[in-house]
């Protein structure tokens, strides 16, 4: 009885000053996040219906919705999505493969790190927007350009996190491997890879995030298809409703990607607990 009470006391060991929300407050609290968007939407509707601004600058909400539905139904969004997906997939595979290989080399071998570090740092200091004009001159605006830019965006965080993840493996694990006289391959498969899985996945997740941003940038600047291009296309035709549809699609895609990666990371964390 006493220990049962103790456990309950421990479980509610909150600082005395945190308030307890009452039921009606909780209901109000759930609606609060919607207040600002609702107000903005009303203001938008008002401005559009009163004609305060030209439709090229501020299209009516229903216009945006109509365009969205239209583009969805005639397959434009899906087609562009497919192109973008293909690009980001290819770019990611290329960048991740190179990134993992380089990261492993840097993590495992100190000499490799000493040779490669300055050059890599210089490369990392150049953002995607810097690579675009250089690569356009070399490759034109073909598909190769986009894949390379995305691959570079993926490469950077994966190299950094993989190398760091391997270097952060506790010395005790590596010593144990030495004492057991493990062969290099076994050491890699059984010790290094599992122990660095967490940071590596962090890098992959970051890489995919950067890949998405790079995708949008390169599609906006040097493409004729893709969800990034949609906005440029709408802008060129002075159809701001399409621009807004494009922004919404980009936002939703980014959000979906983030959620998917978070879910995968949580599954991974449950299967392979982080070392430490």
């Amino acid at each position: 009885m006493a220990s049962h009470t103790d456990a309950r006391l421990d479980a509610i060991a909150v600082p005395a000053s945190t308030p307890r929300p009452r039921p009606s407050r909780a209901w109000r609290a759930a609606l609060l996040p919607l207040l600002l968007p609702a107000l903005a939407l009303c203001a938008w509707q008002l401005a559009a219906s009163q004609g305060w601004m030209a439709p090229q600058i501020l299209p009516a909400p229903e216009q945006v919705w109509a365009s969205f539905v239209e583009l969805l139904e005639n397959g434009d969004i899906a087609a562009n999505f497919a192109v973008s997906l293909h690009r980001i997939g290819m770019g990611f595979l290329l960048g991740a493969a190179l990134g993992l290989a380089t990261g492993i080399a840097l993590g495992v071998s100190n000499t490799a790190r000493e040779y490669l570090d300055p050059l890599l740092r210089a490369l990392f200091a150049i953002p995607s927007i810097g690579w675009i004009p250089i690569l356009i001159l070399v490759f034109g605006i073909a598909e190769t350009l986009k894949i390379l830019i995305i691959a570079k965006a993926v490469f950077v965080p994966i190299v950094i996190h993989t190398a760091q993840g391997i270097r952060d493996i506790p010395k005790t694990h590596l010593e144990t491997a030495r004492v057991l006289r493990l062969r290099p391959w076994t050491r890699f498969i059984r010790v290094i890879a599992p122990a660095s899985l967490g940071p590596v996945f962090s890098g992959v997740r970051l890489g995919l995030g950067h890949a998405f941003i790079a995708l949008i940038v390169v599609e906006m600047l040097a493409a004729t298809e893709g969800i990034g291009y949609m906005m440029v296309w709408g802008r060129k035709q002075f159809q701001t409703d399409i621009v807004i549809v494009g922004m919404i699609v980009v936002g939703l895609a980014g959000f979906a990607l983030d959620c998917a990666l978070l879910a995968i990371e949580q599954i991974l964390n449950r299967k392979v607990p982080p070392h430490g």
Partner: protein
Amino acid sequence: MTTSSPSLARPGSYALSLRRVGKQYTVDDQPLPVLERINLDLRHGEFLSIVGASGCGKSTLLRLVAGLDAAFEGEILIDGRPIAGPGIERGMVFQDHRLFPWLSIADNVALGLDSLDLDPRDRDRRVAAMLELVGLSAFAKAHPHQLSGGMAQRAAIARALVSEPEILLMDEPFGALDSLTRVHLQEELLRIWSQRRVTVIVVTHDVEEAVYLSDTVAVMAPRPGRVVGATRIDLPRPRDRADPRFGDIRRAILGQLRR
């Protein structure tokens, strides 16, 4: 020489009065009493220690008196008036000194006067006087990370006292310090108290510390937290820990704890 009664209630005008103070948490829709019907009366200038095992609610009680928690039953009266949140008439010292690391010691102590809107010269004078009292005048411009644990705790005491509160509340103030520093600071605390004559409540798990410092030692038992004994200590100060009477009182209180 020693008396034992479950209630400390006495008639008269008191610095602090607790009347049937209770507190409960609700866990899984069941009420879980943490404090039950605490009655306490403290006269001005009295030094009270509250001892008890972990989980008996002594820190919770102190936080209620400090005004950090407003959810309780019963009444807490300062000079006959019910409290409403933290007040400048109650100073508090925590176990971790909680000095702001980005301010100098003098600036930290000055924060104790912030709500009083004083003339800057007045404020500086009082800060200097307080630093003198706790023996940290030479460290006025130093920063907390440059001080030892004992010195930082002295600065925390200075900060709590600079506004000349009526009541000083201390939650295991020397718990984080080594035993030598603890003994030294106990003596310092008594010296400061005898010069300032504030009412002091010290929550501690160290019975010897309680007997050394206090006029009265209240013993709390857990589940639910309640006062099970109060011992009045009539030994003159400074007290000798080797004195057999000191040992008797200490053993008696330990006995109350074990019940």
